[in-house]
């Protein structure tokens, strides 16, 4: 699969999009990010960032929730 977050390689890759959140990817052995860097996959399921705010690219680190909170005018989270 490929997209804004990069390409996932593996024999039988399955992707699930989380609304306003990451892509869950199963079956990938590695992920190539937008800059071309290759990241090995070490988890049974990985979450690829779709909001471009992650500090741990290409992996989701929950920053999409901070953005949603900001949009709703809420104070910082925990």
């Amino acid at each position, binding site marked *: 699969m490929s997209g804004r977050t990069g390409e996932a390689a593996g024999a039988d890759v399955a992707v699930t999009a989380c*609304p306003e*959140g*990451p892509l*869950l990817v199963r079956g990938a052995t590695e992920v190539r990010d937008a800059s071309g860097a290759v990241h090995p996959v070490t988890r049974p399921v*990985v*979450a690829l960032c779709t909001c471009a705010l992650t500090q*741990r690219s290409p992996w989701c*680190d*929950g920053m999409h929730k901070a953005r949603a909170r900001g949009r709703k005018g809420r104070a910082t989270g*925990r």
Partner: protein
Amino acid sequence: MRVPRERGPLSRAITAALRSGSTAALDELAVRGTPDAPELAENDDVQISLWILYQLHYDGFDGVAAEAEWDPSLIGLRQRMERPLLEELRRACAPYVEKAMAADGDLSARLFELVEQVPGAPLAQHLQRHATRNQFLDFLRQKSVYHLMESDPQSFALPRLRGRAKVALAELQYDEFGAGRPERLHQRLFADALEACEVDACPGEHVEEAAATTLLVVNVMSALALNRALVPAAMGHLAAFEATSSEPSRRIAAGAGRLGLPAAVAAYYDEHVEADAVHEQLAVREICAPLVAADPACEPEVFFGAAAYLHTEASAGHDLLTRWGVAA
């Protein structure tokens, strides 16, 4: 591990019964709060007693027969504490459950929203920016009560689930348990962090200094996971736990870096930033949502479990900040 020191008449009686092997006298014990801790949730004696009784389903204790796990008098006493404790929590969580039931959106959206609604303690921010080394180590010792048995309670739910929820919980747990690599077991990563700080990492080592509010968080996990009737609440609890982990873990890892703590400390929290960004999606969308789709009547239970985690975790966090003299 050894049986921890008693904190009142209930735990004194339980400790004596475990030592002697004779438990019938426990049947006469009444469970009640004390004038200084009327709520069971805040009561040291009740919380250490529950912790001891639940441990019989995990590692057990040195010198206590494994068969004590199913002793009817010990189980009966545990239920006489568990039931009123859960009722207290239901009363405290009812406003959040009602709000989530009435809100717009699918189950996943409302569950994520409930997580945002229940206030937390600003513990991670304090650890990130201001905590002293002593406060940080105190935090690690308090948290060790859970993290040295991390994810063990939730495993009890596996036989109690079916279909997609069962598979997703197994997927989540597989990651928690190292995805096939013992050195990546999350319990092991936390032990590594403690040992790197020269803090004892034996399970149960720090239970005697654990506040009632710290014990309550783990006791609620055990109560929900060990009762089939409460499995939807156990999964809501798990969802709220996972959904409030990545952001605080980011802050706590930064705090460990600020204080120059050994790399293993930040490594534990860095792992959780990434792992729990996955796990929150699994827990909400692939465990709780299918559970409620299969049985809509369990929706309020899922919300109760989530609110119960957030409420008890906030109490533990506020307690720690108070202990350190930090204004909340």
